[in-house]
């Protein structure tokens, strides 16, 4: 009971302490301990989940703030705790002052609160805590980016508040259990021909508002514009949590939509092909998110932006999985949420390391870092393989599940989008691999050192998890099966068995190892090996010195850019900017007209109000 409270609030308290103490060494220790407590307690709470859900209710200001640790929230809270812990660990190296500790830990509290909330008020309050804390993290670095993020998030959050208001007005309850029952009862009565408490319009409105709210947070396609700026203009260790966990709050929200009003939405919207129509909307937007995020990621010239767009792209998979709406696809989506948190957290920690060590962010300044940062490179190698979906890593298992789920439901358009996204994932990762790790090394990053210890530990944790969950995909799958209380993904811990397809992580690892051994034997039995300097290379048979830059660092995908030129001109970022500019202009215009300094005008306003009152018969 108190554990739950401790899980949620210990990061906040630790953050506060770190902020107050501001002693170097102490604040880091306090922060890390604060983020470690939820992790330990969540692991400790795991055995008790099978008996009954942990709940806790807090009476604050007339509201009953309820927390509940169900299996679903445990899974998401574990994502938050693990990635949050590693991000905080990374921040021990990269954070500049105690301000960052306060808000990074506050956002961890926010996101844990969102995942363990048992009613909509708790959900909303912690949603706002999370938004505010992450806004403050970005605000320190870039005002424009943070305000863009904040305004969009606030629009989303208040859309959610309106939806909560409608639900509360109709059902008179805010706890998930009551609302869920109310909606299913409503759906039932609707199916039997009666009129429920929610009309079709109201249901659509609530759905639309929730779509807006969770879409903003998740970075869904037309609402993704804040993500590239906010993810890039902040402490990159924090971004590991920002992208890895905070965006999962949106995903969790979509799942909550299923939990609360699945039956009602099906009844009202009907089906599109084999998927529920309302889910298909989410899935289709998710598919667009994959494509848009992927293509834009490939065209970025900034390492942080590339991963920001990549993050958007990967969220698209999760939305597709959630949208398709079968038990398998939702399980696949949650699996991908886990694996995305693991590899994207790892990626941003790598980015944090690179930026921390070199102080540079753009691809044009990098090259040949693999020799100088071997550990970071090894971790990047794991992350790259994982994101691109190379078999023995977790990214493959989760993507494979999503592909299978989409194909099984016979949704060709979504399938095309998902596969395209997988291809484009390779494309932008090659850009990262090539421009940062290989090729010539610019002379000003000649003396780069490897990752600092806290970052190395954090990367090590995530890298190990990537491998473990990849080799033993059943670990996660079995756990996810428990969410639904039935065997959706069969097999043991090494194997995923869907009935129409199976993936054995261990066997595959063994075979790959054997294959690599054979390849190694062939390689090492071959001709003698001699190390040559990087400039001793081809170049149409011409001599090369270090003055020649033979590594392509700018406009790597220029032909792609040219091919997509028409589509790239359509920018939602610009659209929102125009809308915002118009609103600002409107405000200025209205101010000039209404507060015009003319006393007679004010007298006229009074007269008009009186006329209106007279017309209303007051």
């Amino acid at each position, binding site marked *: 009971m108190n554990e739950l409270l401790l899980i949620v609030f210990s990061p906040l308290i630790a953050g506060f302490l770190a902020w107050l103490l501001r002693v170097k060494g102490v604040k880091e220790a306090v922060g890390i301990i604060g983020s470690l407590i939820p992790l330990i307690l969540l692991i400790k709470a795991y055995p008790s989940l099978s008996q009954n859900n942990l709940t806790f209710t807090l009476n604050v200001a007339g509201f009953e703030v309820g927390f509940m640790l169900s299996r679903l929230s445990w899974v998401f809270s574990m994502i938050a705790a693990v990635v949050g812990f590693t991000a905080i660990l990374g921040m021990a190296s990269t954070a500049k002052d105690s301000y960052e500790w306060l808000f990074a830990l506050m956002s961890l509290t926010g996101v844990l609160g969102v995942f363990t909330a048992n009613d909509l008020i708790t959900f909303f309050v912690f949603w706002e805590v999370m938004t505010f804390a992450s806004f403050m993290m970005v605000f320190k670095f870039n005002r424009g980016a943070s305000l863009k993020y904040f305004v969009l998030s606030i629009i989303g959050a208040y859309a959610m508040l309106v939806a909560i208001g409608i639900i509360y007005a109709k059902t008179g309850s805010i706890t998930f259990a009551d609302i869920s029952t109310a909606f299913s009862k409503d759906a039932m009565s609707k199916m039997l021909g009666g009129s429920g408490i929610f009309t079709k319009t109201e249901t659509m409105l609530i759905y639309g508002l929730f779509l807006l709210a969770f879409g903003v947070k998740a970075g869904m396609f037309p609402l993704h514009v804040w993500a590239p700026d906010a993810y890039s203009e902040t402490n990159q260790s924090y971004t590991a949590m920002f992208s890895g966990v905070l965006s999962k709050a949106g995903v969790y929200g979509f799942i909550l939509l299923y939990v609360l009003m699945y039956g009602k939405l099906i009844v009202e919207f009907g089906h599109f092909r084999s998927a529920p129509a309302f889910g298909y909307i989410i899935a289709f937007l998710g598919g667009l998110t994959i494509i848009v995020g992927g293509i834009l990621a490939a065209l970025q010239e900034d390492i942080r932006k590339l991963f920001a767009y990549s993050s958007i792209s990967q969220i698209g998979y999760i939305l597709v999985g959630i949208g398709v709406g079968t038990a398998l696809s939702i399980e696949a989506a949650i699996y991908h949420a886990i694996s995305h948190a693991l590899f994207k957290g790892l990626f941003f920690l790598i980015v944090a390391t690179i930026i921390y060590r070199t102080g540079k962010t753009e691809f044009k300044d990098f090259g040949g870092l693999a020799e100088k940062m071997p550990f970071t490179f090894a971790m990047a190698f794991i992350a790259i393989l994982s994101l691109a979906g190379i078999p023995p890593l977790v990214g493959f298992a989760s993507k494979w599940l999503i592909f299978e789920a989409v194909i099984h439901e016979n949704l060709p358009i979504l399938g095309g989008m998902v596969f395209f996204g997988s291809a484009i994932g390779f494309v932008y990762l090659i850009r990262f691999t090539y421009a940062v790790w290989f090729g010539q090394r610019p002379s000003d990053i000649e003396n780069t050192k490897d990752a600092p210890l806290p970052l190395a530990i954090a990367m090590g944790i995530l890298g190990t998890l990537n491998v473990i969950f990849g080799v033993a995909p059943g670990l996660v799958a079995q756990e996810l099966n428990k969410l639904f209380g039935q065997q959706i993904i069969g097999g043991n811990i090494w194997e995923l068995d869907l009935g129409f397809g199976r993936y054995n992580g261990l066997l595959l690892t063994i075979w790959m190892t054997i294959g690599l051994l054979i390849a190694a034997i062939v390689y090492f039995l071959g001709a003698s090996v001699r190390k040559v300097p990087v400039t001793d290379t081809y170049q149409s048979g011409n001599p090369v010195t270090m003055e020649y830059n033979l590594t392509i660092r700018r406009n790597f995908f220029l032909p792609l850019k040219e091919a997509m030129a028409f589509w790239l001109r359509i920018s939602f970022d610009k659209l929102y900017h125009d809308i915002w*500019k118009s609103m600002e*202009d*409107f405000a200025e215009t209205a101010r*000039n007209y209404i507060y015009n300094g*003319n006393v007679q005008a004010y007298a006229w306003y009074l007269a008009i109000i009186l006329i209106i009152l007279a017309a209303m018969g007051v």
Partner: protein
Amino acid sequence: MPAKVVGEEKVKKSPSFVKPWLGLKYLFKKPVTIKIPEEKIEPAPKYRGFHTLDWKKCVGCNFCGQICPARAIEMTWIEVDGKMEKRPHPKIDYGRCTFCQFCVDVCPTGALGFIESYILTTTGDEEELQLYDWVPIHPDKFKEIQDQYRDWRFPVEKIEVNEETREVTYYLRNGETFKFKIVGYGIRPPKPPTKPAPKKEEKKDSKQ
């Protein structure tokens, strides 16, 4: 020295969808207009309007005719009350005149002047078009008429030209008439006997 160029970003404004509505702020303001039939506008003092000519001062030097950029001035020999003026006077064609008033500046005796009146409207009738071609009247006269009406119109209502007798009659607005005869054009004086035959007879008579 490098030329001073203002940066484009300072000059170029970003377009707006809403700002044009600020143009509606004049909706409740007093419109800036002059209701011409009811209200009158005062032209500036020394507004370049129609010409005046002091016939006593004019020496017929034709400086005005030479400087006129539109060649609107023609020297005219005039006979008033049967007595021919000693010098030709400028006749101004308002069909060509640009109202630059170079002629006034150049006039050595100050005979040619101008006045603020500037309105002259006619129909297209041949008779009325005569108004555009006149030998200006005396400044004091013009001033008198202008002060009387203060509507800045041309002081002559009608100019009647008798083709045969070459007699010109100005019907001024205050009812007065002003008559003279045009006996010739150009700088050179016209040949005095307009009708040679009878004059010859007279001469013969006088000789006799």
